[in-house]
């Protein structure tokens, strides 16, 4: 039952993706509202899936890599629904849908939904630490999406090759403001996640700590570079993409390693 909800959710994101591709191919106006509602519906199915899974497990559903990917996709959709309309970045939905679709399709297709018996009893601090860190990843994912949008728009402006998408993308300065805010939001949440990790009471796994601090330092360095104007906006946008790719790889590696051998 819970996987069916996830499939329904994935189909919603797939619909938004197909609609975007068709609109781009036919050169017709793309209504951000459609993507917003498609992602909203997909989010409801995701929430239902996570709720059912959480009740079944008796804890926050972050016990294996499959759940981690779904929770990450849910966080991305959540942050998009919260900030997309506020910053008038409706087209972000067109970029967000493929990311969420890819995350969930991978989660559904890969043999990673393995029941994992937790060695630790349910712990509110641990669950807070895990869930807030995942939501931070959602903010970083959207900063990455905004970074892609920035680079696409910047490339068109530099090369003077104006395509149909140019008119739909937000102005560079608005995109850069959104990137900066998403970075700060993600960094603040990630910091809270890191700090809460110290209150879980259990032994702190060294590898996880090193990786988590490496991600934290990477994003901290981007923000510091932005604050001190060491990096041009284009470089910040590129670093957001790089940092998120690295962070997801680290996340996957941590979960993979922790499931194969104790860390």
């Amino acid at each position, binding site marked *: 039952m819970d996987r069916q909800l996830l499939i329904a959710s994935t189909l919603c994101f797939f619909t938004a993706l197909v609609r975007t591709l068709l609109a781009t191919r036919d050169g017709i106006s793309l209504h951000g509202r459609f993507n917003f509602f498609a992602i909203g519906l997909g989010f409801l199915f995701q929430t239902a899936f996570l709720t059912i899974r959480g009740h079944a497990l008796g804890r926050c559903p972050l016990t294996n890599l499959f759940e981690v990917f779904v929770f990450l996709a849910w966080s991305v959709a959540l942050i998009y629904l919260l900030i997309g309309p506020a910053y008038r970045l409706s087209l972000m939905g067109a970029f967000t849908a493929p990311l969420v679709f890819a995350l969930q399709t991978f989660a559904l297709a890969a043999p990673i939904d393995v029941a994992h018996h937790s060695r630790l009893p349910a712990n509110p601090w641990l669950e807070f630490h895990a869930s807030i860190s995942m939501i931070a990843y959602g903010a970083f994912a959207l900063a990455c999406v905004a970074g892609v949008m920035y680079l696409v728009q910047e490339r068109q402006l530099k090369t003077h090759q104006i395509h149909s998408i140019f008119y739909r993308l937000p102005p560079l300065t608005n995109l850069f403001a959104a990137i900066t805010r998403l970075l700060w939001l993600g960094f603040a949440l990630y910091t809270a996640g890191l700090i809460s990790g110290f209150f879980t009471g259990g032994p702190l796994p060294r590898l996880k700590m090193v990786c988590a601090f490496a991600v934290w330092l990477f994003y901290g360095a981007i923000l510091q570079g932005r604050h001190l104007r060491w990096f041009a906006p*284009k470089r910040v946008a590129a670093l957001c993409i790089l940092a998120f790719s690295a962070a997801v790889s680290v996340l996957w590696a941590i979960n993979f390693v922790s499931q194969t051998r104790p860390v």
Partner: protein
Amino acid sequence: MSLFCIGISHHTAKVETRERYALRRSEEALRAGSGCAEALILPTCNRVEVYGAADSTIGTGEIVRCLAESETIEDAGAFYRYEGEDCVRHLFRVVSGLDSMVIGETEILGQAKKAYENARASGNAGPLLHRLFQRAFRAAKQVRSRTEITRGAVSVGSVAVELAVKIFGDLRERKVLLLGAGETSERTARALSSRGVTDIRVTNRSHERAETLAAVVRGHAVPFGEWANQCAEIDILISSTSADEPLLTPGILSPLLRERLDRPLFIIDIAVPRDVAPEVNEMDGVYLYDIDSLQSIAAQSLALRRQQITAGEEIIAEHVSAFRARYGQLGEAAKYPPGSAGFDEATLRASEL
């Protein structure tokens, strides 16, 4: 009762011919002179069209004579005539901007609304024209929203403004420097000013000329020797001097950019020979456009609009069919004469515009 349209436009006549009919004629006089039950004149800079509804056929010559206020007609061949469904389709195309000189321009919709409002207020637009124009406005709205017919700027000035908006978003706080006092830079500055730019600085080798242009664009003149330092502060540079060699090179701009790393600089170089070295475009945060690239974007936009004509025609065909289905022979609605219960002011609410 049948619908007809008689008109003259940029497709059929030059401006010197069109201007003879451009003076606004009274719709009352037109109705009295031709015997139409309903009449509406749509005058724009590219067309003069009469939309009418009558029980019997009204000759094109009668309408043209009324428009010309003359018994002799010299340009009858320049006038076209559409009847019934063709008239409906023509109006929908006109109001949607498909028949405009600049395809997809949006001014025509406002002009049509104004013409309709005048005819409605004076009682010359009756139930048939009312429904026809309301449907035309809906069709135009859909063509705009469902296609890309209005996308992209098609003149150098408007391309520059559009690019500025895509770089900066809100232009109200942006600072503009006009380097040189050319006509195109003045037009571009005016276009930027119309989008809210208030800080416009003008510099020229002749300070007097700079002051004159500054007064025209409501900016202020700065000494020519300071133009390079101004580049650290401004957001948009419009250059149009008659210098033989590039004035702005990476060597000059590089130290200034360090002070403005996270603020983009948009440079519009409309001088020939160019005032800005092309290598400047390679620098981070600098977006350089010369006259060729601006014209090329305008041409791309126009081509994009042309590609959208078919999609627009499909939407219009749907509306023509809907109008025909609802009003049968395109005259059924007129069975309620103006002032009767079926056709009162409430029916013709101005709010429907």
